[in-house]
Structure formats: C-alpha cells, structure tokens
C-alpha cells in the first residue's frame, strides 16, 4: 500500500490534465472528473485500513529540494490524523463531484469546472499527505489558487472576479505568517519534516513565535478574525465549490495544521490562550451576523466561519481530537447544507434570497427532509453529529476554564451554540415552511410565479445528499469514541490529566447546557418564525425600534467598510505615492530619462570642438604630441639631466 500512496493525489491530477486540456463531451468530462476522486477514495480506504493496524505509511517519491543542510524530499505520509483527513476529503469530495455533474450540467464551463475541482483535490491531498511542512505549504498555496479560480469561476461578472481576488489577497496575508512560521521551525529544529520535528528539542521562545505565525496563516486560510472577510464573499462561486472548498475541506486546513503541529502548540500556552479567544470571538461574531442575513448562502457562509471558530477553540485546549472531530462532522453537515441550498437555488432557477422562497417543504419533501437533517446537526439537536462534536469542544474548553481566557471563551461558545440553533431554525422555517413572499408583499406574485416550474433535483443530486444526511445524523454517535481512540497516538506530550469526577462533572454540566441552549435557540426561532404572529412581530421590530440594530448586523457590522478605510485606503495611498514619487519621478524621470539627457547634453557640448578645420586639428595633434613628450621627458628627467648637465 505504501508504494501506491503517490496515486492518491495524482489520480485527480490526471483528471485535471485531461479536462484542463481537452474539451470533451459533458458526459465523458463528468465521468473523468469523478473517476479520479472516487479512485482516490478507494485507495484512501485501503490506506486507512492499514493505518488502523497501527502502521504509519510513508513513501519517498523523489528528492525535491537538496541544498546543503536543507534536504526536503518529496515524501508522503499517512498516519491516523492524515488518514482521517484524506477519508473526509476524498469521501465528501467524491459526493460533491457526483452532485456537480447534475448541478453544473447546463454550464458552458463544465470541463473547466471539473478541471479546477480536480486540481483542488490534488492540492488538498498534497496538503494533507505531505510529510514535511514545506510540502504542506505547496498544497496550502495550491488550494488557495484553486479557491481563487473557482470563486471567480463565473468571471464575466466583475463582482465574482473581485470576490476571487479578495480571497486570494486576504489569504496572502495569512500565508506570509505561515512562511515566517516555517522559518521559525527551521531555526528551532533544523529540519522541516514532521517526524524529525516531533523528535526535536522544543525551545519555548521559538515555539511561541512559530505557533503564533502559523496561527496567523491558519487565520487566513480558515477565516478567523481578523482575516475572515473573504469567506462570505467567496460564496460568489458555484455552490458545490462552497460546499467542497469553503465548508468541508480547505477552510479546515488551518485546524489540521494546528493539530499536525501539536508538539509546537503544547509548548506555547499563551498562543493557545490567544487562539481560544480568537476562535470563540469569531464563532460569536459570525453567528450574530448569520442571524440577519437574507441570502441563503451567506447564512451558511457565516455559519461556517462560526463553526471554524469552534474548531480552533477546541484545538486550543490541547485536546486536538475535539477540533478534528468537529472538522469531520462539520464536513458532513455543512457540505449537506450547502449542497441542499444549491438544490434549492437550482430548483428556483438561481434565486438565493430566502424572503422569496418559502413553502418549499410541500413541493420538495425529500430535499426538505435532508436539509432539515443537516440543519438539525448544525443546530446541535441532541443525538446528531453536530451535538456530539460541539459538546466535546465545550467540555474541553470548560475543563480549562480555570484560566480566564478559557472561561470567557466557554461563555461565548455556549452563546454561539444557542445562536446557531436560532439562525438554523430561522433558515429552515423561512425556506421550507413559511408562505412564500410573506415578508415582502411586493415579491409575492413574483415568487408564486417562479414556484410553478420548479426544477426538481435528480438522482445524481439527491443520492449524495442522502448519504450526507445519514452521516450528519448518525456520524456523531458512530465516530466519537473510535476517532478518539484512533487518532490518540498522534498527540504527543502528557496525556490529558483530569480526575474522573471532574470529567464527569464537566460532561454533565455541558450536556445540560448544550441541550438548554439548543432548546432556547430553536424555541425562540419557532416562536419568531414558525408562526405568522411571530413573523409579523419580527417585521415590526426590524422596521421600528430595532431598525438601526438590524441594519448594523445585516451590514456585517460594517467590517468591510472599516477595512476599506483603515487598511485598503492607506495601502492604495501608499501605492499611489510609490507610483508617482518613486516610479515616475525618481526612476522614470530622474534615472532613466536623466541618463539619456546627460549623455545628450555632454554630446552637445563636445560637438563644439569638432570644427572640421584641418589646421585646428593638426595644431591640437601637435600640442598633444608635445604634451606627451613633455610628460615622458619629465618621467625620465634623471637620465637626460645626467646626459646634458646644463
């Protein structure tokens, strides 16, 4: 098996090369696009089974960078952590590929779409499988590139292309931190491969710096405060992209990286404290914004940012399994929700505004059922996957709440859990239950007209949704203990020390609190959006007393505008100064044209000496010859003074 590891990333790459260079008929292009990820999934299962027997698979593919002390082979590694990740990436990825055949069927960029999607799979698998942080960085940049390409997939609209650029540039800021982190690791360990680093001597000072810089990188890729702003805009891409890249896989790369570098992070408790606060703050902030969004994908996007905050908070407790567990369950239910949202949008011919939806439950019962399954898992209905993973994180944070940062974070996370239940209930009730156009009388006729020719999702769309729905509901119960046991050998350092009594106490408190906030959030959601009276009250509140508050939240607390004035405008100003002063004045005018002008001026001055008169030429020649003669005579004056003693 370890001889075949290279095939796992390369199979999707082959799909990319075929679909990227040839314009095949859509059927064939779709089959080729799906074949790579599915074959990779089969190989991943094989690798997983072998890892399950306690082996760690390694393959040295070729020597990549070899320069003196710096030796970086192109090596792949599957240990329990990466085994879990490749299963999620290829498994959920394959389902999304299959779904895309149906979803993108009428798009003229069909082959291009699958080519990019396959390239993304290659990069993501490289990120996860690479056995050194340098190779991980290659995958890290690769997924960033594919994210950019797919967000701007419908590039003919400027808005989409701009969203792609925003994602790319925001990620660049994070990647700069990631690079600095790599340099710190090199300084500390003198090697970059994970095995070598994990056996190396950890120095507290460098570990803190490396952990901080790498976390900045993770903030960019995984959309944490302050670099989260690109993810909601990334919804400009096709919905399967949002499901695959911006919910299930790429954005969780930061959590994977933190888990992978666990031996560095346990040595940097202050960075962990920062991480738990950033994670919890992101979770709460994005959760609040999600409440007031009216675009179905924007709600899910902010929910994703919020859940990513949960994952970082979990990882920050040094119980990395909790973060990883949430990565896995979140991949299931958020992919399901995005794909379900895609099916809704598809059915309504591109309508994304939830105020124009409503009443879809009766018309699309199967779709409504799977969407509700995903929603319940996200909201944390006891028994669903989301409940278990969120609860695990809450327990982990609660156990460390002796430290003030963790205590504050626990409260924020608990509030977020309630908010999550609230906005999920709101979303489901408005989209599937309420009468269409209830909130907006004007849109009523329009919405009714649209609902007559619903575009029903086909089997290729429903089958992946059904599989994901089962995983979202049952994944928590089935996976929690096996995952804990399976991944445990990866974590180094002291096992988690806490007395049984305290642990069961934490569990009791958190299960109770989780259920309470779920009931509270979902109940409030029902109260406000489940009944006509509630909706009318919300309408009055939004238009009356809460108008300013609602506008503030709906406009995302004006963070984009704040960045516009505090970051982007100064950068633009600096760029203008550099362009005008340095480039145009100093370089272009002074140096480039200045050199030309200088030569021209000297030439103009010297041409006066070219009189064309032969006599003047001869006189100067003679004077020159005499001058030379005098010089030579002066040099040898001893000799001739001796010969001619005047």
């Amino acid at each position, binding site marked *: 098996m370890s001889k075949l590891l290279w095939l796992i990333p390369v199979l999707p790459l082959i799909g990319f090369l075929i679909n990227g260079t040839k314009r095949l008929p859509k059927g064939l292009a779709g089959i080729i696009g799906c074949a790579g990820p599915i074959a990779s999934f089969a190989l991943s299962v094989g690798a997983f089974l072998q890892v399950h027997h306690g082996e760690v698979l390694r393959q040295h593919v070729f020597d990549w960078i070899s320069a003196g002390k710096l030796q970086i082979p192109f090596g792949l590694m599957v240990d329990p952590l990466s085994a879990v990740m490749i299963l999620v990436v290829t498994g959920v990825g394959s389902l999304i590929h299959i779904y895309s055949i149906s979803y993108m069927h009428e798009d003229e960029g069909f082959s291009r779409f699958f080519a990019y999607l396959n390239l993304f799979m290659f990069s993501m698998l490289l990120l996860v499988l690479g056995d050194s942080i340098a190779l991980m960085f290659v995958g890290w940049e690769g997924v960033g590139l594919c994210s950019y390409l797919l967000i701007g997939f419908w590039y003919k609209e400027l808005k989409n292309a701009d969203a792609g650029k925003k994602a790319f540039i925001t990620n660049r800021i994070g990647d700069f931190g990631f690079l600095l982190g790599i340099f710190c690791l090199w300084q500390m360990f003198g090697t970059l491969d994970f095995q070598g680093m994990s056996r190396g001597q950890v120095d507290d000072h460098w570990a803190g710096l490396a952990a901080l810089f790498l976390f900045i990188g993770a903030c960019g890729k995984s959309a944490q405060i302050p670099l989260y702003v690109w993810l909601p805009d990334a919804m400009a891409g096709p919905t399967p992209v949002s499901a695959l890249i911006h919910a299930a896989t790429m954005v969780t790369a930061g959590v994977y990286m933190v888990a992978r570098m666990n031996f560095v992070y346990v040595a940097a408790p202050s960075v962990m404290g920062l991480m738990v606060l950033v994670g919890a703050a992101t979770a709460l902030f994005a959760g609040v914004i999600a409440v007031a969004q009216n675009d179905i994908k924007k709600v899910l996007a902010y929910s994703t940012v919020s859940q990513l905050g949960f994952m970082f908070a979990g990882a920050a407790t040094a119980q990395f399994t909790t973060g990883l567990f949430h990565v896995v369950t979140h991949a299931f239910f958020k992919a399901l929700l995005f794909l379900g949202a895609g099916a809704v949008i598809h059915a309504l011919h591109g309508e994304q505004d939830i105020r124009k939806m409503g009443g879809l439950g009766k018309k699309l019962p199967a779709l409504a059922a799977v969407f509700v399954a995903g929603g319940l898992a996200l909201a944390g209905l006891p028994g669903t996957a989301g409940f278990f993973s969120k609860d695990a994180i809450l327990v982990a944070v609660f156990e460390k709440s002796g430290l003030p940062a963790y205590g504050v974070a626990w409260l924020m996370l608990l509030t977020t859990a309630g908010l999550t239940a609230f906005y999920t209930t709101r979303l489901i009730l408005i989209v599937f239950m309420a009468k269409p156009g209830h909130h907006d009388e004007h849109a009523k006729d329009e919405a009714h007209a649209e609902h007559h020719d619903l575009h029903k999702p086909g089997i290729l769309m429903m089958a992946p949704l059904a599989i994901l729905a089962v995983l979202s509901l049952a994944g928590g119960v089935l996976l929690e203990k096996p995952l804990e046991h399976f991944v445990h050998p990866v974590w180094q350092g002291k096992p988690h020390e806490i007395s049984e009594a305290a642990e069961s106490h934490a569990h009791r408190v958190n299960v109770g609190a989780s259920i309470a906030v779920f009931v509270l959030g979902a109940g409030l959601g029902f109260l406000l959006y489940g009944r006509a009276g509630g909706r009318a009250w919300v309408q009055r509140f939004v238009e009356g007393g809460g108008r300013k508050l609602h506008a503030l939240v709906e406009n995302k607390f004006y963070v984009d505008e704040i960045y516009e004035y505090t970051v982007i405008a100064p950068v633009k100003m600096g760029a203008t100064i550099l362009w005008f002063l340095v480039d145009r004045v100093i370089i272009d005018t002074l140096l480039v044209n200045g050199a030309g002008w200088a030569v021209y001026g000297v030439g103009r001055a010297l*041409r006066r*000496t*070219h*009189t*064309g008169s032969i006599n003047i030429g*001869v006189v100067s020649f003679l004077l020159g010859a005499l001058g030379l003669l005098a010089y030579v005579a002066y040099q040898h004056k001893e000799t001739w003074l001796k010969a001619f003693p005047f």
Partner: protein
Amino acid sequence: MSIAHYLILSAALFAIGAFGVLARRNLLIILMSVEVMLNGVNVALLAFARLHANTAGHVFVLMVMGVAAAEVSVGLAILIAVFRNRKTVDTGDLKSLQG
C-alpha cells in the same frame, strides 16, 4: 662636427616642416612640409647611428624613406581626388567634418 650640429640641423628641419604644416593652407604644401619633417628625423637617426656605430639607424632611415614614398603617392592621389570633387585644395574650405 659634434653630434650637436647634426641635431640642431635635424631639429631645424623638423621645426620648419612643422611650421609649414601648421601655417600653410594648401594641401600640396602641407604634404611637402610633412616630407621635410620626415627628413629632419632621418638626419637625427643617421647622426645617432654614426655616433653609436650601430647600423639599426640606417635601416630605419631606409624604412622611413620607403614609407614616405608610399605615403606621398597615396597622399597625392587623395589630393587629386579632393580637387576633382571640390575644385579646391585649400584647407580653409574643407570643413565638411564639422560636427
């Protein structure tokens, strides 16, 4: 006669030639003056050859004469070509090299 006499003659010839080159404007005269300068040098060479009893000086003089003959033939040919083109050999009128 000491070496000094020969050298004075040589220097005088050279100076007369140089004066001719500088002061006259007729190309033909300038060419002749150059010949005078060359012969001034020849006198000096022969005088030193005699003084040091070294035949190298003689050889050089023969060499200079040969070169001078070639130079005069080329120079006269140019002079004739210039005259045919410009109808003048006055250096005051030949200024087309002005920058």
